[in-house]
């Protein structure tokens, strides 16, 4: 067993970025992402990482610089949170349309207002349709591993799309966890240097980002959508290869003690750790037939895998960390209802919103949600979504 090192998750991510030997980093500090790029700036300043670190005046500029460096053929990284992501918004759409494999860590934080620096998933959900691949890490080890795998996925010529790796702000970014690092030799054997299929190069000029007249725009969007959908096969391939090489295998949806379950919880991000503890108590002490699904891949949405995993399940309780104001469902819950609607014998989907703006989601909350979801299933209660843990 390799040596485990106790280190803050943000610094572990910086180490992964260093091991990936990125060429360019452009970032603007924002809580709770700051420690990641702060440490990267130190690595560059100390000569430990041979990369351009480009400090910018805003996140809009950070993402614009990333577009430029990636287009020039540089392996490019950035990180942000919340309002910073919101400020990047315009350029977030451009990056996948130009098929640029930028990797970004999102230390998930709620959006203002009220002003909040604490964790939920409202920042990512606000950029859901920008066309990025979105992956969730549940703990520091996953964040380290997924950061490395993201470069390989994004830069695969069959993919050529940007990726955001989501880690819960503070809950992950600021905690010290044991991590099993990979050596530079191990990373080099897994991640080859970036070989751009097309790049801005005066010796072989191309024009990027041309106008999409009505005769072209629709076809461009179709091609982009297909590229994102088809990236799932490469994501699974890279997860597989990483597992074979280093012994830690990832799936687009992780399943925990779901065999023989009648009720499944479904989470994204770090609350999955608490949910696993709740599942253990309910299974081992209460004899309940429950299990857990952890959605790792949010975009492209793993619709086939989800349908397979919920076969024979009576109740599926989906926990969202964001609100789609005035909508018919919470972001994940609504998506899952939509994915299952046309399938036969679909489970009853109870859609819950919990843990907004850093509110803790406790073991008891998960147990309450399982019981509530089962009661709602028995009564076939018609609902859009319910907020759990809010004072009524």
């Amino acid at each position, binding site marked *: 067993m390799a040596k485990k090192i106790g280190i803050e998750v943000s610094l572990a991510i910086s180490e992964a970025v260093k091991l990936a030997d990125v060429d360019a980093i452009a970032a603007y500090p924002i809580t709770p992402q700051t420690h990641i790029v702060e440490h990267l700036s130190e690595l560059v300043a100390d000569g430990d990482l041979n990369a351009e670190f480009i400090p910018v005046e805003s996140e809009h500029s950070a993402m614009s610089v990333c577009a430029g460096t990636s287009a020039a053929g540089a392996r490019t990284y950035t990180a942000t949170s919340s309002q910073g992501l919101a400020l990047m918004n315009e350029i977030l759409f451009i990056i996948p349309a*130009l098929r640029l494999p930028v990797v970004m860590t999102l230390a998930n934080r709620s959006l203002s207002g009220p002003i909040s620096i604490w964790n939920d998933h409202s920042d990512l959900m606000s950029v859901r349709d920008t066309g990025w691949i979105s992956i969730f890490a549940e703990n520091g080890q996953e964040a380290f591993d997924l950061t490395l795998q993201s470069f390989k996925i994004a830069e695969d010529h069959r993919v050529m799309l940007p990726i955001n790796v989501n880690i819960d702000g503070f809950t992950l970014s600021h905690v010290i966890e044991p991590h099993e690092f990979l050596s530079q030799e191990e990373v080099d054997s897994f991640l080859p240097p970036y070989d751009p299929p*097309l790049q801005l190069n005066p010796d072989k000029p191309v*024009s*990027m980002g*041309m106008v999409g007249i009505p005769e*072209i725009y*629709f*076809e*461009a969007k179709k*091609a982009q959508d297909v590229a994102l959908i088809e990236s799932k096969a490469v994501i699974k391939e890279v997860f597989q290869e990483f597992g074979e090489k280093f012994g830690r295998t990832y799936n687009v949806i992780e399943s925990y003690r779901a065999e023989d379950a009648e009720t499944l919880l479904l989470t994204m991000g770090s609350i999955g750790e608490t949910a696993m503890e709740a599942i253990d108590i309910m299974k081992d002490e209460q004899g309940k037939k429950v299990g857990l699904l952890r959605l790792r891949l949010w975009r492209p949405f793993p619709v086939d895998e989800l349908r397979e995993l919920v076969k024979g399940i009576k109740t599926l309780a989906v926990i969202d960390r964001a609100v789609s104001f005035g909508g018919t469902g919470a972001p994940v819950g609504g998506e899952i209802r939509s994915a299952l609607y046309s399938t036969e014998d679909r489970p009853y989907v109870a859609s819950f919103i919990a843990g907004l703006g850093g509110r803790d989601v406790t073991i008891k909350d998960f147990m309450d949600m399982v019981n509530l979801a089962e009661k709602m299933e028995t009564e076939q209660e018609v609902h859009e979504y319910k907020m759990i843990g809010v004072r009524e």
Partner: protein
Amino acid sequence: MAKNFSEMTWKEFGLAFMVTNPGCSAEYRTGDWRSQKPIADKDKCIKCGVCYLSCPDGAINLAADGTYDFDYDHCKGCGICATECWTGCISMVEEEN
């Protein structure tokens, strides 16, 4: 003329719809949306070439007799040539269609 875009499927465009042969807009008729076009009274032309130098789109070509012709496939009708012409031999007229 290059292949008509409106006949191509989404699979036929390259990665990110990038243009890999820069300058290829010369292969397309880009002046179709012009609302006014320049015409020249060549009797007044002194062959100075100011129109040729000032055209932002390279849509004015040297003719065999030393005067200049308009490339109506690419002229956008901006009128800079008519404004800059020293002798006033260029005027802008409404496109009929």
